[in-house]
């Protein structure tokens, strides 16, 4: 039990450090770092507070606090990944709309250039 809590403590600190480092290097935008930092903080608090972990495991009806910890870790990461799926879907929609807009604008620009060329040729 104690060893597992130490491992999750180290993992949560590593996760927080990695996210902060990535934000500092502009690899992750601040708004998307919030979910990961929240996940790291929750993991850290539960790993270091046996009172909180025991209380949660009692509420969940689980006799073994480590199982409650793993269940909570799983839930937190499922929420983070779900949120990222929503963000990715929004980005894909925006990206497709932008690609279509670029193609249409290029098409119209090409047509306009051809019209100008034809007008110029007809004058000379």
């Amino acid at each position, binding site marked *: 039990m104690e060893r597992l809590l130490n491992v999750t403590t180290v993992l949560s600190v590593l996760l927080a450090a990695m996210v902060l480092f990535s934000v500092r290097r502009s690899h992750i935008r601040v708004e998307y770092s919030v979910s990961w930092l929240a996940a790291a903080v929750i993991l850290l608090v539960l790993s270091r507070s046996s009172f909180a972990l025991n209380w949660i495991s009692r509420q969940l009806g689980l006799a073994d606090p480590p199982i409650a910890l793993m269940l909570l870790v799983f839930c937190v990461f499922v929420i983070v990944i779900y949120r990222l799926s929503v963000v990715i879907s929004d980005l894909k929609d925006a990206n497709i709309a932008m690609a279509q807009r670029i*193609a249409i604008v290029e098409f119209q620009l090409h*047509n306009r250039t051809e019209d100008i060329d034809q007008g110029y040729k007809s004058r000379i």
Partner: protein
Amino acid sequence: MKPAGGPNQLLILIPAFNEVGAIAGVIHEVRAAMPEAPILVVDDASTDGTERSARSAGADVLRLPYHLGLGGGVQAGYKLAYELGYDYVIRVDGDGQHDPKYIPALLQTLRATGCHMVIGSRFQDGNGNYTNSVRAMGIWFFRLVLRPILGKPVRDPTSGFVGVNREALQVFTGSFPLEYPEIEALVVLQRKRFQFQEVPCRMRPRKTGRSTITAVKSLYYIFHVLLGVFINVLKFERRRRKDAPREER
């Protein structure tokens, strides 16, 4: 390509991805069937010279900056057609499976019936043999699924040989399925209570290349489309519930 010069203008839309071997022939056939109609090829970032071949054959080309897939390409063409003021768009696939000699029949049905979408159906009065058994089962399955949703039978729900009017164009510029769009597009229109008709036509084997839907992919296709249909039905139900108190008043 010019903006539509007046009412009832038709645009022929040909989505193509790596169809250099077939695209010129398709354009010539379309030109022979509909000499007056402008032809727009949507090149979905082909790498084989499809764009050059289409331009040489006399079509206008809308070149996408990267590969969007069939739905993304068709929707881009619909958006351009809508912005240019066209009233009717008929889609013909770039692989030569759709026989352009049926375009006048599709256009005539669109104009005469006032329906929003017309489908060139290989199973009404034509030759539906050019399909593998898995796909045939899929078509049969989706006929069953769509029958209660659409409120009328549809014999060839996977046909890409379709024509739409301006009202449907407007809907599709805002919402169009990106992968395997044919079946979901029918449900999108149904949500707006739009009407569709089927017109018998014959389909041919593709001239070059191979279909993107293999037997294995057919299973993914069925799952993907079924999910899309289900989601669209849920949207429809939610809207109906929202409308219900208003109807009661």
